[in-house]
Every structure is written in C-alpha cells, then in structure tokens.
C-alpha cells in the first residue's frame, strides 16, 4: 500500500514534468492570463474569447513575422496564489508575450514573475494604481488608470452640484483603491465625504448599510466595485427611498447590473472604459464575436482584443521575437488604432489619454451621457 502511494505520487510528479511543452517552436506563443474559474470567470472567459478572436484574425491575415500565433491560457482565478502559478506556467512555456490581468489583486504578485523573465505584458483590464509603482518596465496598461477614472468621476459630481458624497467599496484591491483616491481628491477640493463604507463580497442584505447612508443624507453615492453586489446596493438604496444621484465605477459596467437592479437602476451613472456598443470602430468586432461565441461581448472584450492586436503590432515593429525589442516597441507605440481608441503610453507605461466615458442608465440600457 505504502509503495503504491509513493509510486503514484512520483507518477503524478512525472506527469507534471511533462506538462507545459505543447506548441512547436515555429509558432509565436502568446499567454493569456485571466480568471477562467472562480467568481470572476465570466469576465475572464470573455477576455479569453476576445483575445483568441484577435489571434485568429491575425493568423488568417498571415500571422506575425510569418509565424502563427498560438495562445495558451493560465487561469489566474482572481487569486494571488493561483495567479503566480499561472504566470510561472506561462513563463516556463516560453511565451513571447502575455495579454491579461483582470483582478488587480491577483495581477500584482505576477508582475515580479514577468518582470524577472522580462516578458512583455499587456494589461487590458486591471487598473489599480498600485500596479504602476511596481511595474518593472515590461508591463503596459491599456486600460486607463484609477487616476483617470477619479478625474472623470469628480468632474461629473462637480457638474451636478454635489457637495456631500458617500463612497462604498467592496474590500478588494481594485475597489478600495478607487474609493480611496476619490476620497482624497474630493476632500482636497474642500468637499465632504459623509460616508465611506465597505460591504462584504457576496453578502446580499445591505439594509443596515443603506439606512446608515440614508441617515447621512448624501447628495451622491459612489459605488466603486463590481456590478453584482452593486446592483443589490442600488436596488436597496432606491427601495429605502434614497432619491439622489448614484454613480458606479467601471467594474460595474455591465448590462447585468441593469437587469438585476431593474427599475431601481434608472438614472444611475457609470464611469466606463469604452465598451463595444459605444465604439463605432467595434461594429465588425461585435458581429464577429457574436458569430463565434453566440453571446455579446462584455465590458473588457474590446480592450482585450486591442491588447492582442497591439502586442502583435509591436512584435511586427520590433521585427523579432526578442523580448527586450518587443518591450521597446511597445513603449514606443504611437497612436495605435485600437477599436477602443488610439493607444500611446506615458513614461510609466500607462495609457496616455483617459479613455473614460460617462454612461447613464435609461430604459434598462446604458447610453452615453451627453
């Protein structure tokens, strides 16, 4: 019995050693690091789909430098430990570049791994400002950072004549970062943050929080976290008779928020990176995506698609698969035309322009606020 156990564990080890050598050397290997399991799997799969769609189009058009793109996915599961394993897996497979990064918290510890291997990393979604500080230089954020989002948010609040603001986040890296930045900026402007709250992820009943917020009589409530719990907070705020402005961050930009919150979501503002519906350049992408995956692309599909295209473009410009050359080419990107808008980088490898738009919910749909 004991020996069989030892043998089988050795067998498992041997099996493990075999893993990770699939693609042939003549291909261009691109890693995708997104959560494909866990609570954020929906977004992860959406991003994976969009990246694969882009890779497919590139291959159809002849590939990159004559090589076909082969993608491989590492499941980050929105969990730091699993994300580091996924990153190591991609690094071991000798990928030429990686597109990915959805949950900021899970992306943070992988930065070191990609940095050590000097692998070009294009981050389409994760946008905690913490990512900027620890970027060793190989990572490029094509989603606007939290700084840009706060700017957009504050401009809306100012335009609406708001003074007393309530901020609610969800106790994860991304939403706390956004909440904190907003609070700093708002108080620096001499305005008041009357409530700064946090809810537990997955907790459904928010009545106590709602009562607390209502008692502070804010002019606006800003939800900085994801749509699923956001929808419930909005619904319960409206149910309890809160009638003032509600705004949500880019993590809540989903048609599902409107579906879950129903009528309560009417008039809610959302700061968002441009999603497919508002991008004239993305019409073809939308149709292709729908044809390929039988569903509408979600919030980060367009940026993920752009990320893959940008990486391919940079490799073409670099003229080789040399990692340092690709990184150099990425940094030198000048007005790359993505479907989500032109991409250039600052000296900190973040998107040079703010791509945030303001949406507003009307008749169960997000429309551009004008």
């Amino acid at each position, binding site marked *: 019995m004991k020996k069989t156990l030892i043998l089988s564990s050795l067998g498992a080890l041997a099996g493990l050693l075999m893993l990770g050598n699939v693609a042939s050397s003549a291909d261009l290997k691109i890693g995708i690091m997104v959560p494909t*399991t*866990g*609570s*954020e*799997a*929906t977004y992860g*799969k959406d991003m994976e789909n969009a990246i694969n769609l882009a890779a497919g189009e590139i291959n159809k058009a002849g590939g990159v430098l004559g090589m076909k793109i082969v993608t491989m996915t590492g499941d980050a599961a929105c969990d730091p430990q699993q994300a580091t394993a996924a990153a190591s897996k991609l690094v071991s497979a000798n990928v030429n570049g990686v597109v990915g990064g959805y949950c900021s918290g899970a992306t943070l510890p992988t930065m070191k791994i990609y940095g050590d291997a000097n692998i070009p990393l294009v981050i389409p979604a994760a946008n905690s400002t913490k990512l900027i500080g620890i970027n060793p230089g190989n990572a490029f954020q094509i989603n606007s950072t939290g700084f840009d989002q706060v700017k957009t948010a504050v401009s809306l609040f100012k335009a609406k004549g708001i003074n007393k603001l309530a901020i609610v986040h969800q*106790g994860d890296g991304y939403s706390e970062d956004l909440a904190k930045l907003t609070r700093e900026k708002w108080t620096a402007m001499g305005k008041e943050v009357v409530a*700064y*709250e*946090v*809810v*537990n992820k*997955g*907790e*459904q*009943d928010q*009545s*106590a*929080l709602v*009562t*607390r917020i*209502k*008692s502070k*009589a804010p002019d606006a409530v800003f939800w900085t976290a994801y*749509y*699923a719990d956001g*929808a*419930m907070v909005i*619904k319960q705020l*409206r*149910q*309890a*008779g809160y009638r003032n402005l509600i705004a949500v961050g880019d993590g809540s930009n989903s048609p*599902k928020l409107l*579906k*879950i*919150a*129903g*009528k*309560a979501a009417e008039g809610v503002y959302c700061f968002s990176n441009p999603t497919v519906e508002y991008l004239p350049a993305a019409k073809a992408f939308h149709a292709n995506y729908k044809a390929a995956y039988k569903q509408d692309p979600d919030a980060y599909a367009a940026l993920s698609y752009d990320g893959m295209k940008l990486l391919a473009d940079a490799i073409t410009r670099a003229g080789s698969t040399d990692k340092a050359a690709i990184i150099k080419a990425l940094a030198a990107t000048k007005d790359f035309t993505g479907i989500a808008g032109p991409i250039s980088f600052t000296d900190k490898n973040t998107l040079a322009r703010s791509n945030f738009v303001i949406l507003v919910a009307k008749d169960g749909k997000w429309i551009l606020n004008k």
Partner: protein
Amino acid sequence: MSIQDILLQQLANGLILGSFYALVALGYTMVYGIIKLLNFAHGDLYMLGAFVGFIALSFLSDYIGDGWAGIVCSMVLSMIAVGLLGVLIQRIAYVPMLSAPRLSILITALAVSMVLYNGVMAFTDGQYLAFTTDLNYEGVQLGNVFVTNTQMVLVGSSLLLMIVLYLFVHKTLYGKAMRAIAIDQDACRLMGINVNKIIALTFFIGSSLAAAAGVMAGTYYGSIHFFMGFIIGLKAFTAAVIGGIGSIPGAMLGGLLLGLLEAFGTQIPFIGTEWKDVFSFGILILLLVFKPTGILGKTEIERM
C-alpha cells in the same frame, strides 16, 4: 433622520435579516440536533434552492406569471427538489460515515459543500443570474420606518415556516420522534421508530427550509450566483451556535439576535461598516467563552 428613526429603522432591518438567518439556521440546528453533524453543505442547499426556484419560475412564468403565484409554486417545487437532494446527500455521504471519526464527517460535509458549489459554478459558468419577478417596491411607512410589502411577505412567510416547523416538532408523532432520536437512538428503535427514516425526514425538512430561504432571497435581492450560500451559511451557522446548536428555538433566537447585532453594529459611533463582522464575531466569541453552549443550548460532555 433623527437618531430614534435611524435606530427604529435598524431594528426593522435587523429583524428582517434575522428572520432570514433564523430560517437557514434551523436546518443547521435540526441536523446537528439529531446526528451531531455540522452540515457545512447547508448554505449550498440554500444556493441550490435559489437556482431550482429560478429554473422552475422561468418555466412557470409562461403559465402563471412571475408574480406571487409563480413564486409560491416555484418555491414549493424547489423545496421538494432540494429536500430530496438533502436526503440523497445524507444517504450517499453521511450514512457511511456515521462510525468514522468526527473530523472525517466534518470534512465530508465540507467536501459535499465543495461538490455542490463547484458543480453549480461549472454549469452556470460562474455567472450571476438575474432573478426577475414582477414584484414592486411599494411599502408601508410606519412612522419614519419604511418597510416594503415584499419584505413583510418574506418575514411573514419565514415566521410561518418556523411556526409550522415548531408545531410539527412539538405536536406530531414524527416530530416527537425526531426529538427523541436526538436523545437516545437505541431507545427509539425499541419504540418501533425507524431511525434512518426519521433522520432522512430531518434532512428533508432542513434542506427544504434552506431552499425556501434561497428562493425568497432570489426574489427579494434579485440575483443569484453559485457563491451566494457561503456567507449566509456562515452567518446561519453563527446564529445556530449563538442560540445553542441543536435547539430549534435557539436557532430562531440566534438568527434574530445576529440580525440585530449586524444592523446595530453598523451604527456604533466611530466604527464604520467595515468593522461590522468583527463586531458580530467578537460578540460570538465572548458569548461562547462565558456561556459555552450558546444561549439555549444544553450542557453536555462530548469529545471529538
């Protein structure tokens, strides 16, 4: 809002939330009372209940709409289906473990829980589903306290279910047999009571109560997902322990108490909502240190 209004509103919030916790805690406590098993899968049965209710409602809404009639019908269907699943789980996973070490049974329960929620995750792709009904937000203003009709119906039905359960356990022969099994299984056998059957019945009732709570949560909060059972499972477990695990009135009391603690926990000066759970867990630990068997629990000596 004046401070009295806020406190009154929080009282209402706490009672509403608490009646919900109580409903889920009942299932925990019933199963524990009989076979001394902490059924970690209970929260997941709540989640499954919501999903079954969702599926049932999407079929039924074509015939009877998604108003109260549809909700009640899908709730009953969900209660039956999840109740049977509870019995199946007991048969497959817990019956063979009855003579195993206590920790192994606990781990088996954790494994069952993982099977259930990972199963639902795999089949729903981890998506949040919108549980749409045509319920509105109208309600009653009692002084400065606002309660929606839906909330009242939900609290009413959980109270009703609890009363029905209480009557069942205390007034019917089967209910008395359940209590007797918790006291002495051998003696029950000698009374002609088929112990396994009664335990299965307990699982059925406990699971269907969780399913009822799940469907209520789905209709009230408007969204369901594979992970929704986790937090409520944790809270219901806490409520059951606060009240004294194994005791049915204890579960009700514990649920209400926890609901109130959480509601008022957000109102403590200088302490924000972020400390709410620290507050309730802290009280729980203090309570157990000074009254180790919970409020209504019986003292008994037991080892792992």
